[in-house]
């Protein structure tokens, strides 16, 4: 579903991502772990076509994000770490806008919006301006908007930040549902317990380089993921 080959990205002279390669199969949830500034968000944004990269190739379902960005974007969705949405729109207008740009039919969007809004308990807030939303509500809206077009690949940057426990639990269930129907998820997190329980695969990035990539069992072995990560960072 997602194949990153030799991704390299510079910010000026600074190397942010260094020759990173990984492959996520359909049906897999891959957790992306690393310290602040390690290159996680840069990688995720490059995958989504938001950020241009200097070298390498990113394939979504076999299509290159450079050659066919629109085709790739139609198959995926991105949830940023800080959901800055269109404050001047109401929640429902924003969701309609996203549904429009992904050409989602009226019936399908109505079904999905009603379902997810109820599950995330923001049905009563959808007629309010987004500018009045809390961080958590914006995060919920960003998640709903990402699910409207039934993406095959979901890219999430710190998706649980700001969510209440119930919404975080529901998000994990939805992530699993997506994978059960053949989709894939690539998400960054600092919550290593969640990553260990939820992910099929783990990728650890350090100073822009992918230092570990494999199934969760392979990576953690009989240790906790936290222990492995601290070891890699030279803290143990």
């Amino acid at each position, binding site marked *: 579903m997602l194949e990153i080959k030799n991704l390299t990205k510079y910010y000026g002279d600074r190397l942010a991502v260094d020759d990173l390669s990984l492959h996520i199969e359909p049906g897999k949830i891959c957790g992306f772990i690393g310290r602040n500034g390690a290159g996680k968000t840069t990688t995720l944004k490059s995958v989504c076509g938001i950020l241009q990269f200097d070298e390498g190739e990113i394939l979504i379902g076999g299509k290159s994000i450079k050659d066919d960005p629109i085709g790739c*974007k139609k198959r995926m969705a991105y949830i940023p770490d800080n959901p800055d949405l269109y404050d001047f729109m109401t929640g429902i207008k924003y969701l309609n806008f996203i549904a429009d740009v992904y050409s989602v039919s009226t019936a399908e969007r109505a079904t999905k919006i009603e379902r997810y809004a109820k599950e995330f308990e923001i049905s009563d807030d959808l007629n309010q301006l987004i500018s009045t939303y809390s961080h958590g509500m914006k995060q919920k809206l960003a998640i709903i908007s990402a699910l409207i077009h039934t993406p095959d690949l979901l890219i999430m940057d710190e998706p649980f930040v700001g969510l209440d426990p119930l919404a975080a639990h529901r998000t994990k269930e939805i992530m699993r549902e997506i994978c059960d129907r053949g989709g894939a998820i690539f998400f960054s997190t600092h919550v290593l317990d969640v990553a260990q329980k939820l992910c099929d695969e783990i990728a650890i990035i350090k100073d822009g380089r992918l230092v570990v990539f494999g199934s969760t069992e392979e990576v953690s072995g009989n240790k906790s993921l936290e222990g492995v990560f601290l070891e890699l960072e030279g803290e143990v």
Partner: protein
Amino acid sequence: MIKNLVKVRIRSVLHTMNFADKNGNKRKTPMKGLMLLLVAYVAVMLAVMSTLIFLPLCRPFVDAGYGWFYFAFAGIMSFVICFIGSIFSTQAQLFEAKDNELLLSMPISPSAILVSRMVFLVLMNYVYEAFIMIPAFAVYCATTPESVTAGTVIMFLICFAALPMLTLSFSGLFGWILSLITSKMRRKNLFITISSFVLLGLYFSVYFRIEGYMEELINNGSEFANAVKNAIFPAFYFGRAISGGAFADAVLFAVICIVPFIVLCILISVFFAKIVSNSGEFKKNTDAPLRFKKSSPKTAILKKELARFLSSPQYIMNAALGAIFTVVFAVIIAINKNSVVMALSTVFSGMGDQVPELLCTTLCLFMSFCFISCPSISLEAKTLWLIKGIPLSSRDILISKALMHMVIAVPLSFVSSCICIFAVDMSPIQMAILILAPISVAVFEGFFGVVVNLLFPKFDWTSETVVIKQSAATVITMFSTLGIVGIPSLLYTELLSDTISASVYFSVFTVVFILLSAGLYRYLCTKGAARFEALQS
């Protein structure tokens, strides 16, 4: 601390105007020179306009023994300009700045935050005041040199320094009240837009009648002077302090200005945290059914751009003013054709009595002040990830921004032209020109604004008003288009009107603008799209 906060605020404004780079360092590129040139051009034009107002007033008043009233009038005018110019900036800077909460969370006292904001606003008001008071004083020195003493100069400086405090007392209080009213309003933007239109209407109703007022002022100077002396006593002290070099009057005026300013500062600093943290919660609209309405992706992105534009009174009042003026102008033509045409004939003397061509030139010039598409990329700022992440090509995104401009400007231009056509007799060719030429300018400016914003984007703004009104992209777009439209018109009226017919000139003018628009469209589809893809907020 206050010094640092003021420095941050000034740096933020300079940065928004592209005078400084991302690190706050001075820009070294030739663009800095161009920006300074544009600023100088605006400053000179405003100073000349003020000078033209004060020239016929000074000598008669001084000769009649009403020298003080000359300065009182200048002071009142300065007060009004500063108030209108800073009312919404004051509200935005004091009560709605994006970094208010961040600063309040730091170990900085509310009074320090407030003082830093006030210092910035005072500086801004000095700039507004300078455009009125310096020409007024220069005219006084030039036309009545015998009245100028060292005392006059010193008192002028004292009064000049004090006046913005009085303006800020009023605009700060008004901004506070506005903030309190709008915080509980669901239709806050509509309220601010209508209020802005009312203020603007008042301003222009005074501006368009300024000649009549001036005449009346000269003829009935003593009556006006007495009225001002009794009703607006600070203006009396202001005028007498400068014209008479009276130190006591200057001190009294300074006290009148400074005391309310200090009182307001204390009051706001006491309530600052409460004002800023006022979330403006109102009853939730939970009963309304959710509406699911489908549009095509391109329509959706255009609707989103329009929603962005219509959500901001500052955006409407600043960027669409030119287009709104075309309609106002057309209505004035329909009501009072003869006097407006006479005034236009004196400006564009080469066109003489060619009324349709005069109207066409004026509509084109007004349209050149419409720059709706210009800040549209900068306004994406933190939502740039969103627009770049959706499955639409960069070309479609950029074109939607230009289209948004055209969807607003072209109908207004068309309506204005139609009103003018109904009001004035003209041939079918002149009708076609009157419709097509302003539309060609509107289309050109739609594309041009996006191109300029692509070249000068600003994403790290703290107030959208600043990026809409003062960013490099806005200034460059506005004055470049004014030049591109105005210079050929002036060249034609002054040099070519005897050799080339107006119909031929406007036909060429329209074709050139259509070709320029096609060129800009091509740029946006190719290099512009590539540039947009490389943008990072």
